């Protein structure tokens, strides 16, 4: 049997999903959109023979309106896939707004159960919810649970399976009264034949028509005559209720809920979790402290991820990989294997695997912190604080975190856009991330500043970072008017109470991201590394090259180098290093070292023979802006779900890099 898990954001849906399914999860996307679809098997409760019971975790939504891809995906899933039941999770401390979605779900005529979550907090506040009465009034089972305390989960699982087996749709659908009631019922009669033919629940279809829901009108393929009748019925209703169709329905639902809550809930003291939140917020979103605290938290996360702790784990990792490479190499050499094969295995395959794995520590550590920030409720506050700033470039406050992570590593930054609430914001933010200069570019900056601007290292570095941000802002302003025009999703965001993150959630989230990265990025990164190895090792006659200037890669570098003449670095070594930089930005410096036959400090000396200070600066600008590494491209491919979109971003980056560097080089040459 298949069950759909649906609820508002911040109601503990992920925690419940993890409780029900354990680590037995599969993450994918809904077809055509970048809305996440998680599936898992119910593992708690009584084992029911060999029956497989799947839970599908649908996106956190507040309504079934036709406006956002998350809501449309949920509607389509429920109507087209017809799950055996709906598990509607509700935050019992915020029952009114949560029931608003429940009333809409009931109209779908699918067996449904309500999981009344956070009952521990309800008890703590001295409130009381008459679950039996609520269940009677709504005509469906209601199970009190606390997902975080693991209370009532087994009972919920059992009731869910029972619901699936009984397959009794909710008996009661009528929560309306007066004029709205009349309108819904007359439209239900009119559209019934068509709705039945299209397998759309009649009641749902009628309500959506009253609301003026465009996708529903299209789906039902109403004739012009029928559309006229709908229009007539609705305008009658609007006249009599004195309000418009959308407000009339929202009003009706909330009115019913208010009455229901008055009958079933005895409110105690203010929820302690909420009072705690208010105290925490008086510091964290304080007028003067909010921004410094946020910057401090981000700084601390960076310091740990990219500083000593992260570096330690990273170094351990690469030491392990190096050890494997060295051992395998010596083993193969001892076995007197052909040197080309040894090189393929050690320099190609194993270092390919190594470069994939080298991203792992950063991803795991960053997502540990991100998921803590998200689960505690702090992320919503960050969005609240930063919104005004980001709105100016056409985004909302939520984009600040992925963008800041971009300064560390673009891969987790692109992956972190998942938390953004609309597809447009996700794509828009992703397109801007590469402009935040990632930490892997620092060695390039360091090598060049040491060679050309030893006195002004700090200034050159700062200039590069600021240029990246500025060009990002300019790009955003252009995107806002062109590619990502359209309306941004309105910034109407719940500020959930602060809650202690669950270790299980955090660990599962880390594991999910690590798995996701390895499985998706592996092929791309691995393939790219082996290809680059191949071009580096052989010449066009497939002989192993002794002098790296004879390799195919060098030939390709020579071939494309004229493109870089206007930028001031038309030499083949630069082009070759830039190509090698596609695997990972660190490879730029090491490639220069190989091509110039220089070691360590000699690289700077060798570089100063190849570049003038102006062309060096132009080269740095180019590396700042041009296409990020293949790992990032793989992340794009995964998150955008489209090859075209990925190629678009890559081409845009290269074009911007070329134009800016050329402008800089030509102007600077003219002026000097």
């Amino acid at each position, binding site marked *: 049997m298949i069950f759909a898990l649906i609820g508002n954001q911040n109601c503990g849906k992920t925690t419940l999903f993890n409780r029900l399914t354990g680590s037995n999860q599969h993450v994918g996307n809904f077809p055509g959109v970048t809305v996440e679809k998680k599936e898992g098997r119910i593992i708690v409760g009584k084992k029911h023979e060999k029956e497989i019971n799947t839970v599908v975790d649908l996106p956190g939504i*507040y*309504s079934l*309106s036709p*406006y*956002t891809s998350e809501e449309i995906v949920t509607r389509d899933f429920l109507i087209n896939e017809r799950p055996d039941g709906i598990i509607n999770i509700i935050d019992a*401390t*915020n*029952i*009114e*707004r949560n029931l*608003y979605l429940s009333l809409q779900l009931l109209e779908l005529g699918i067996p449904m159960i309500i999981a009344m979550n956070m009952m521990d907090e309800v008890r703590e506040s001295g409130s009381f919810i008459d679950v039996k009465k609520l269940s009677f009034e709504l005509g469906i089972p209601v199970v009190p649970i606390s997902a975080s305390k693991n209370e009532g989960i087994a009972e919920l699982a059992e009731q869910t399976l029972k619901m699936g087996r009984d397959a009794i749709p909710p008996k009661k659908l009528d929560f309306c009264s007066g004029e709205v009631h009349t309108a819904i019922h007359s439209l239900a009669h009119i559209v019934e034949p068509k709705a039945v033919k299209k397998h759309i629940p009649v009641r749902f279809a009628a309500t959506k028509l009253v609301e003026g829901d465009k996708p529903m009108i299209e789906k039902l393929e109403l004739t012009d005559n029928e559309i006229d009748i709908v229009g007539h019925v609705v305008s009658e209703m609007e006249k009599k209720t004195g*309000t418009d169709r*959308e*407000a009339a329905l*929202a*009003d009706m639902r*909330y009115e019913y809920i208010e009455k229901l809550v008055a009958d079933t809930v005895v*409110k105690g003291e*203010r*929820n302690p979790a*909420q009072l705690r*939140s*208010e105290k925490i*917020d008086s510091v964290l*979103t*304080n*007028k*003067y402290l*909010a*921004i410094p605290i946020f910057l401090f938290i981000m700084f601390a996360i960076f310091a740990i991820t990219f500083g000593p702790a992260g570096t330690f784990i990273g170094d351990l990792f690469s030491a392990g990989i190096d050890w494997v490479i060295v051992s395998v190499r010596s083993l193969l050499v001892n076995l007197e294997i052909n040197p080309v094969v040894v090189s393929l295995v050690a320099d190609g395959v194993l270092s390919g695997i190594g470069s994939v794995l080298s991203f792992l520590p950063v991803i795991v550590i960053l997502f540990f912190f991100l998921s803590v920030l998200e689960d505690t409720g702090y992320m*919503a506050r960050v969005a*609240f*604080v930063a*919104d*005004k*700033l980001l*709105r100016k470039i056409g985004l909302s406050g939520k984009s600040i975190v992925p963008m800041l992570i971009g300064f560390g590593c673009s891969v987790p930054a692109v992956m972190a856009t998942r938390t953004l609430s609309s597809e447009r914001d996700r794509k828009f933010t992703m397109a801007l991330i590469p402009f935040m200069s990632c930490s892997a570019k620092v060695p390039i900056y360091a090598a060049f500043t040491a060679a050309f601007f030893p006195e002004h290292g700090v200034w050159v570095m700062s200039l590069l970072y600021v240029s990246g941000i500025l060009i990002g802002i300019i790009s955003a302003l252009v995107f806002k008017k062109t590619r990502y025009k359209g*309306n941004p*999703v*309105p*910034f*109407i*965001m*719940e*500020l*959930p109470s602060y809650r202690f993150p669950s270790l299980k959630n955090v660990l599962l989230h880390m594991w999910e991201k690590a798995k996701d990265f390895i499985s998706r990025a592996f092929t791309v990164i691995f393939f790219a590394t082996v290809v680059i190895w191949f071009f580096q090792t052989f010449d066009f006659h497939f002989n192993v090259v002794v002098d790296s200037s004879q390799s195919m890669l060098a030939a390709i570098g020579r071939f494309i180098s004229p493109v870089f003449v206007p930028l001031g670095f038309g030499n083949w070594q630069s082009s070759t290093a830039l190509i090698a930089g596609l695997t990972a930005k660190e490879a730029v410096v090491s490639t220069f070292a190989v091509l110039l036959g220089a070691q360590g400090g000699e690289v700077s000396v060798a570089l100063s023979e190849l570049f003038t200070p102006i062309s060096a600066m132009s080269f740095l600008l180019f590396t700042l802006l041009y296409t990020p590494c293949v790992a990032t491209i793989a992340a794009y491919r995964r998150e955008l779900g489209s090859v075209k979109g990925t190629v678009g971003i890559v081409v845009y980056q290269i074009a911007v890099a070329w134009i800016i560097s050329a402008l800089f080089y030509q102007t600077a040459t003219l002026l000097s």
Partner: protein
Amino acid sequence: MTLDKLKIGQEAIITSVGGEGLLRRRLLDMGLTPKTRVVIRKKAPMGDPIELRLRGYELSIRLEDAEKIQCDIVSEERGVGK
């Protein structure tokens, strides 16, 4: 009176919700329907967006959107309504 004009701590009752499309629907869906009581909790450090309390939870909206919500002030109390 519109919601964006209220001061921190003031409580109001919504009389009508303007705007259109997704914005309006989202406001209604989140419970900002006529006759609902709302308290202004705070403003973001840069003055915008604002934080409201309604129906027992906290919601943040931008001033430009709050401007579309008509309301009547019911109390000047500084503090938080139930």
